[in-house]
């Protein structure tokens, strides 16, 4: 018996050792790739960083002919379109997920889940074409005139209705992001133990109270993860946004006005950028997108962490 255990440990030790080495290498490769990416981008962006310094972040002129580059409208457009998308997609996505997991009769869930997965698999260029030919004309003829007439006193809804612009970009991003938020949120909500619900119901809570207090609060950090996934997707989305945002590097308070995002700028201009400084400026935009993504994700994680802390405090 002892011998057997011994021999097992020897083989196990050898196999485990090899296995540990290999998975460590797998994890390290990821680190090397990310580091390599950052180093290459910084090196390639260096001519632009040297030429423009901090003004790259705070000026608005993007002029490839004169080789003067400022990325502020791109940063603004990326963040505003993503925030707009989340403002629409989060209530919609989490609402739908709550319906599917808490309220819907069991037979309705599978077909809807199937449709959601289908939506998530639609290529973004298809969303973009739909955006140009259906969404933008509808916004221009129906939605924007109505918004202008009722809420036109807000600077958000002023200016001529072009159809394409920040509003169209936010909407199309919201539509693209919703399936992800629903799919992940639904899984998270289904993972909430039934004991939670039963306990709340036993205390006399209504269905709404049960959902709010026992289910949503329990699933908070998981739901936050779903939102983060959506945020990541909308920050980096390129094709569909490019097709409907109007591609004008300008900052405007109005959601009707055209804008520009960092990912769109790279996709639009990289192929035909011939001069070294121009190319370098575009790579700096890529670097900036990376930095913005890291910052936004870190902020969101901080939020999750602080919310998680609060929940813990309440429980204690």
């Amino acid at each position, binding site marked *: 018996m002892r011998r057997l*255990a011994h021999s*097992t*440990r020897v*083989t*196990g030790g050898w*196999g*485990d050792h*090899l*296995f540990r080495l*290999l*998975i460590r290498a*797998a994890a390290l490769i990821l680190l090397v790739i990310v580091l390599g990416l950052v180093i290459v981008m910084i090196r390639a962006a260096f001519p632009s960083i040297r030429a423009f310094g901090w003004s790259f972040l705070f000026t608005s*002129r*993007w*002029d*490839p*002919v*004169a080789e003067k580059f400022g990325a502020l409208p791109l940063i603004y457009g990326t963040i505003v379109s993503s925030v707009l998308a989340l403002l629409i997609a989060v209530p919609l996505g989490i609402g739908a997920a709550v319906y599917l997991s808490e309220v819907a009769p069991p037979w309705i869930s599978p077909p809807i889940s199937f449709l959601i997965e289908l939506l998530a698999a639609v290529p973004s260029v298809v969303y*973009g*074409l739909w955006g*140009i*030919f259906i969404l*933008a*004309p509808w916004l*221009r003829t129906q939605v924007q005139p109505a918004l202008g007439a009722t809420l036109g006193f807000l600077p958000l809804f002023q200016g*001529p209705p*072009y*159809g*394409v612009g920040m509003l169209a970009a936010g909407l199309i991003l919201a539509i693209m992001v919703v399936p992800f938020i629903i799919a992940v949120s639904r899984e998270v909500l289904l993972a909430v133990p039934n004991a939670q619900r039963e306990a709340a119901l036993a205390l006399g809570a209504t269905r709404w109270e049960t959902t709010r207090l026992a289910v949503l609060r329990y699933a908070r950090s998981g739901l936050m993860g779903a939102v983060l996934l959506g945020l990541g997707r909308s920050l980096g989305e390129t094709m569909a946004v*490019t*097709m409907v945002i*109007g*591609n*004008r590097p300008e900052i405007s308070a109005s959601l009707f006005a*055209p804008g520009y995002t960092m990912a*769109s700028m790279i*996709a*639009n*201009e*990289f*192929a*035909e*950028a*011939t001069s070294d400084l121009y*190319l370098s400026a575009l790579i700096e935009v890529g670097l900036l997108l990376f930095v913005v993504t890291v910052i936004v994700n870190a902020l969101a994680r901080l939020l999750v962490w602080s919310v998680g802390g609060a929940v813990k405090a309440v429980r204690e």
Partner: protein
Amino acid sequence: MRSNVPASLILSVALLGLAGLVLTVGFAPGPVSAQMLMNGTGATFPYPIYSKWFDEYIKVDPSVRFNYQSIGSGGGIRQIMERTVDFGASDGPMTDEQLTKAPGELFHIPTVLGAVVPTYNLPGDPKLRFTSDLLAEIFLGKITKWNDPRIVAVNPGVALPDRPIIVVHRSDGSGTTYIWTDYLAKVSKEWEQRVGRGTSVNWPVGLGGKGNEGVAGQVKSTPGAIGYVELAYATKNNLPAAAIRNQAGKFVEPSIQSTTAAAAGAAKNMPSDFRVSLTNPPGEDAYPIASFTWLLVYKDQPHQVKGQALVKFLWWAIHDGQKYTSNLLYAPLPSQVVSQIEAKVKQITYQGKPLLAAR
């Protein structure tokens, strides 16, 4: 415990196998083939005619196979400068600075012609005429209404609505934009100083649409919009296209014939390196917003056999290849220019010796 051993071993072996696979794929030599592979990259605009040529040319010379990646003119210029491809392709000529930086002397070989047309969306689809000043003022944002007296003056009899003009331009860097802005810069001092010419520029006004289809889509769905697209794209999709007054003072409809006429008009003063802008050319019938598209090849070829195959292809393209242009809505080279290019192709050498036998 015991059952864990095989599991971890299996996983290890699987991971090692995967690593092995990656390494083999990474270092395996490419498939050996008797066919010679000619690599090229560059412009997207001539891609349809180039791929047609490459298909047809296999019948002429079965020993060459072409691999063309249409990644854009910028990429074409970069890759030929780095000698990672056998030929490049570009819709805009290389700059002097780029030519001096290149490791060898590069030739621009014109292959076909393209034209850019203004298209618009007005009720009743009227046939419009523009002068160069009007186009420049509209795209500078100085003429903002369709019923502006200056537009009305050149379009007598057309009912122009009291609508704002919405300018639509390409958002992606493109040869089409280069030709359009090159024309505007030639005809308007203010455009040249404020905006200039390039594959992407800092537009004074307007919305950006991605690709010809993005511009056309936005124009189609926005009453009062005006944009610019390639002639081939406008013809295929039956978009309204305006006639433009050329240097000779005649209003000329964009067409394949009037595009070829633009190159014929420029033939007299053709520079020997063909780096010429054909916009606003002389000539009664010349459509003024036209351009060559070029293949970029080294004057001195690094390989004898490959170089020979390349010059034979170039010769074929500017002669027999031209007959495929009309189906694909490109304008063929005028005969005066073909003979000028012939002389250029004959100058391509391998170690100083001409590759093309005297014809």
